[in-house]
């Protein structure tokens, strides 16, 4: 595939991530923080997010498996996940966390279990999308092209 076509595909894919709500404006902020002095900033932060969250999801799962569920503890984990997902612009993960927290407040175990599944689902979906995005970028760079800037005005 020639570079121009790869670049167009990347632009289209990025757009779809915004349209489908996977990403929000915060992701553009991250991109703004990447420059020649820090060329891998976005990949670094996003990778950090996935490492960190994977651990949080494990903690969450075991917290909900306890005999006597400590909803405060569960809520604290979800709060953390919500914070970091919002910091990288992973909007759908963040939204799933917002719903999750409301059920923590109600101490509704059944709904909390459902929310955990939902958050996990969104998390792995997001991970998949980010991986695709970064792979596309790498392929463009490997082919000697530059990564087109994301230009989305309505976010």
């Amino acid at each position: 595939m020639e570079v121009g076509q790869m670049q167009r595909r990347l632009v289209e894919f990025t757009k779809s991530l915004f349209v489908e709500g996977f990403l929000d404006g915060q992701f553009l902020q991250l991109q703004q923080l990447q420059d020649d002095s820090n060329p891998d900033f976005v990949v670094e932060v996003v990778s950090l997010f996935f490492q960190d969250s994977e651990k949080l999801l494990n903690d969450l799962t075991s917290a909900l498996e306890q005999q006597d569920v400590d909803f405060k503890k569960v809520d604290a984990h979800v709060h953390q996940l919500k914070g970091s997902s919002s910091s990288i612009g992973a909007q759908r993960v963040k939204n799933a966390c917002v719903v999750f927290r409301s059920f923590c407040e109600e101490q509704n175990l059944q709904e909390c279990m459902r929310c955990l599944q939902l958050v996990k689902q969104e998390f792995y979906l997001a991970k998949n999308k980010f991986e695709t995005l970064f792979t596309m970028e790498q392929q463009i760079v490997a082919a000697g092209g530059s990564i087109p800037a994301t230009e989305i005005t309505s976010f």
Partner: protein
Amino acid sequence: MGAAAEPRFHVLAVDDSLVDRKLIERLLKISSYQVTTVDSGSKALEFLGSLVNDDRSSSDALPSVSPSDHQGVDVNLIITDYCMPGMTGYDLLKKVKESSSLRDIPVVIMSSENVPSRITRCLEEGAEEFILKPVRLSDVNKLRPHMMRTKKLKDQEQESQEEPERHGDEIGLPPPPCQHELETQQSQDPQTQQIQQSQQPKSGNNSNKRKAIDVEEGLSPDRTRTRYNGVATF
């Protein structure tokens, strides 16, 4: 970015989230600040403690510090997350403001939750600014005026203590530029507007209370609609 001729300000950033520390560190560095990050309030106090020679007035146990560790380190601003396990950002703010040697350091609180009573409490306790997470470049631009102000204070203190010939040099210096105000106004977008409102002085004598009200009035509706339904009378 815009900091060309200014001295490098040193910011202490406090956040328990690794992702958020990375983000705030980068935001501050790209704005030409020197940054130290720590993951808890007690570590922040430990770091600051090295700037403190003797401060045993507080009855609460501060972490033990070795006074000579960081000689020459100076912190121009503390930016801290509100919600942290153990010592919260609010607790840290109080500790800083209670300490005779630290209280002049401006403190800015960050929080992902838009809770009006929390904002008011922090501003009343002496926080300069309450920033909603995720923090953006336009938020970081608002930090400079606070650092400028304390720097001026310090310069004045120094001037009064210094020898006459050195004094002459300092008088020759122009006052610090105020370009930051332009920068922040240019970068207004709907999501960050609410915080900037708190920065534009409405009258000559803004008390913290007044500031808090400004923050609340200026909150952007799309970000806060649900939360404000229940507290309309606030």
